[in-house]
């Protein structure tokens, strides 16, 4: 259940923002081979309208289970505190050299690690100093309209005021260079099909390992 805490939070935000006339933006992401991509990061920023005000601090959690970050891909709005609980029997030491948020924790177990505030938009790649193979992506966006695609490659951004949006789609890879396009969202919302280059991504590899662990 904790896995979906981010979504719960996001859904709550959308619900709050689109209280009057809100529409949904449905984005379907495929790779170049027309395969639906899971965990592609999708977010939309209004081009002319001001961003809806954000609450003071949001919260998110990235767990560590079986030497894996769970989830592997996280999208948060700026000023979100992420907690890194340790579900393994051994200790981890989380770090990031990313420009958006550079930090490191001491070796810890359980919930000893203090939450980290991500206050700048950008990509943060998380690693563990003890376990080189652990990696996770945190994308910090400056908009309340964001999401990750499901296994079907779809992500529905909800509660959008009709208008023009800059839609960014990024599949976790070596470089943070999202695929950006402008989308007009009507009162009935909009649907966009996006193709991204997923080659060079180490995500499927990480996920495969995770699957092995789960089984």
């Amino acid at each position: 259940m904790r896995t979906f805490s981010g979504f719960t939070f996001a859904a709550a935000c959308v619900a709050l923002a689109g209280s009057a006339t809100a529409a949904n933006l449905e984005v379907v992401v495929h790779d170049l081979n027309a395969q639906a991509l899971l965990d592609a990061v999708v977010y939309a920023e209004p081009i002319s309208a001001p961003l809806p005000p954000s609450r003071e601090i949001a919260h998110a959690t990235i767990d560590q289970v079986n030497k894996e970050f769970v989830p592997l891909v996280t999208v948060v709005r700026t000023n979100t505190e992420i907690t890194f609980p340790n579900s393994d029997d051994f200790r981890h030491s989380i770090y990031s050299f990313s420009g958006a948020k550079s930090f490191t924790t001491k070796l810890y177990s359980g919930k000893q690690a203090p939450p980290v505030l991500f206050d700048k938009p950008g990509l943060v790649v998380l690693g563990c100093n003890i376990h080189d193979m652990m990696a996770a992506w945190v994308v910090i966006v400056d908009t309340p309209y964001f999401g990750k695609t499901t296994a079907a490659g779809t992500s529905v951004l909800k509660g959008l005021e009709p208008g023009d949006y800059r839609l960014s789609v990024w599949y976790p890879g070596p470089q943070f260079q999202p695929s950006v396009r402008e989308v007009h969202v009507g009162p009935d919302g909009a649907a966009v099909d996006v193709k991204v280059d997923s080659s060079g991504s180490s995500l499927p590899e990480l996920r495969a390992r995770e699957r092995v662990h789960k089984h």
Partner: protein
Amino acid sequence: MRIQRLRTRIIIFFVALLALVQLAAFALVNAANSHNARHKVDEELSVGERVFERLLNQNAQNLTQDARVLAGDFAFREAVSTKDTATITSALANHGARIGAGAMLFVGLDGEVLADTLAPQKVPRRFEYPQLLQQHGNAKGSSTADLGALSGKAFQLGAVPVLAPLPIGWIVVGLPVDDAFARDLRQLTSLDVSFVQYDATLGWRSLASTVDKDSEADLLRSLPARAVNSSSSLAATLSGDVHQIRLLPLSDGHNLQIVAVLHRSLAEALATFGRLRKTLSMLAFASLALSILGSIVIALNITRPLSKIAGAAARIEQGDYSRSVEVERADEIGVLASSLNHMRQGIAERERKILTLAYQDPLTGLANRSRFSEELEAAIGLARTGANALGVSILLMDLDRFKYVNDALGHSVGDHVLKQVARRIEQIAAAASCVARLGGDEFAVLLSGASAEVVARTAQNIIAALESPILYQGQPLDVGTSIGIAHHPEHGADAQTLVRNADIAMYAAKRNKSGCQSYDPHYDTNQQEHLSLLGELRQAVEANELRLYYQPKVSLHSSNVNAVEALLRWHHPKRGIVAPALFIPFAEHTGYIKVLTQWVLAEAIRQCGEWCRNGLRLQISVNISARDLMNRELPDQIAALLASHDVPPVLLCLEITESGFMEDPAHAQKVLDRLAALGLRLAIDDYGTGYSSLSYIMKLPVQELKIDRSFISRMIGNADSSTIVRSTIELGHSLGMKVVAEGVEDLEGWNLLRHLGCDDAQGYYMSPPLPAEALMAWMRTHDGFSAAPEMGSAETALASQAGNP
């Protein structure tokens, strides 16, 4: 050039054979070695290639391992993530120094060189070997290594990703490919290692090598003038050594190619074989030397005894049979040696026998003529050296009456006599150097260093010893001898002359019946005279210098002259008349008598024919020698002469001395029978001097007997001689022969002969031999002689002749 010596041939054969075999073996081993060496080098190169690749990999592993430590360093990653180039470069330099890397680079994910310890100022730039990064583009952190040039230097490059935790770049580590690197590789592969770089524009360039500069230059020259795409092999001569070369292309980037060259000197590979070759050569030389030695020994083993045998054969050739060949061996040479020894003994034995036969008279056991000659020569040789002051004397003798003994009593008796004589001479001449039977009844004694008295005494003793009769089956046989003595040096300088002179002396002794006679040069003068006579005598016949004189035979009964004896006279242009005694014996000796007899017969028969035509029937007597009797054609020749001059055979009388028959009585009888059959008269001349057996004479067809003049001259006042004359006359008459006396020189003799009943007389008392004309004149003055009627009518003439001879 032909090699004559067996030893040399054996040695050459063996040594050449061995040398050939060894040469072949050496060539084979050499070829095998060479092949093996190539093969080995190839194998070494293959192994080296694998080892080399493995080493490069291992190097890469080590490099990346080391680099990975840095890549994992938190601070370094932090520096990288903050893009702090100065920090990154210093961290790389620091770490590079620690791990011995010549170059350390940080390359970003986009392939940009962000930091370079080798050329810090040359950043950012594109990394020259992107494929090095691509090889592990995935983020797994596997490593790779390759060769490449950085800032003009060669490096083995390794790359490791820097993870944060996803790759954020690469650390590229470069291990300098320099001579030290090559040396390290060589140590591990045992191969020479060079790294060369090919540049399309500049060609080959050496980066590092384990060989010296010259070889390096040679190596570069021998490389193909293009990039090498795959591992390949070639051979090249580097600094005079043939190298097998393996080219391993290691990188191909920026149109620069780096090739690892593994090479191995064949000479080095052959070095081990060189030792083997050296050992082989030493072995070959040793065995060659041994074989030379061995074949010398074998050859000597064969040729030394052969030389010995050859030496022995040479000794045998020279007549030295005393030493045997000393080769004690069981093999063929030993058999040869022992055969030679047997041969030597056989030859020695046979030669001894031959010598005995050659030098010994088998009948008497005395030395023979050859032996005597040799002994004499030896003695003379010794005397010449002065070793013998008394000189050398020889006694030469023959038995006076041996011929008659032999003829009358047979050869077995003769042999017995010879043996006895030999024994007696041997006994007396015991001190002689040599007693020999020279042949027939001829004996010789050699006295070396004996005084004249000893010689004379020995001769006298021999004469005395042979005077006592030799008994044969109780019958005494009378021989007796005449001895000629010659003394070296005065009677002859050499053996031949000495023997000849002794012979002359012996004949002199026989002639004057002195028994023993020393050589006198006077005899030799006669001899010389004889020799010169031979030529003159021949001329005499041709120049008609010969004349026949005729001495009348006067009948003692009738004083008539019925017959004449033809006597040969030589009217020598310078010497005047030469007595027959001076040349007849000589002519008999040389055989020239035949010619003389021919001449005499022809002349006598011609004269007789002439007289006949003039009505004078005078019988002519001609002397025939023993040699003439040997002439089978004589009867025919005489018959022809008689016929041609129309002379009745009865007018020719042939006078033959006793010795004339005795040479070969059987043959003589045949010839005489044939002559008698012609109707000739035959007379025995000089009867009484020989030893003719009466029984033999009786068989001969002889009509006349002429008593020797010696008896006639001695018969006056000598009872013995007159008895002989009388008995001879009686004997002749009893045999039906006419008896003629020769040498009647006075009336006393004439009368006595008449008294004794002798038929005819011949002598100076009546007439000397006269030429034909003088004879005719003499005949005319002695009336009655010329008429020459029948024998019966001669009686009438006797009275008128008696007082006037």
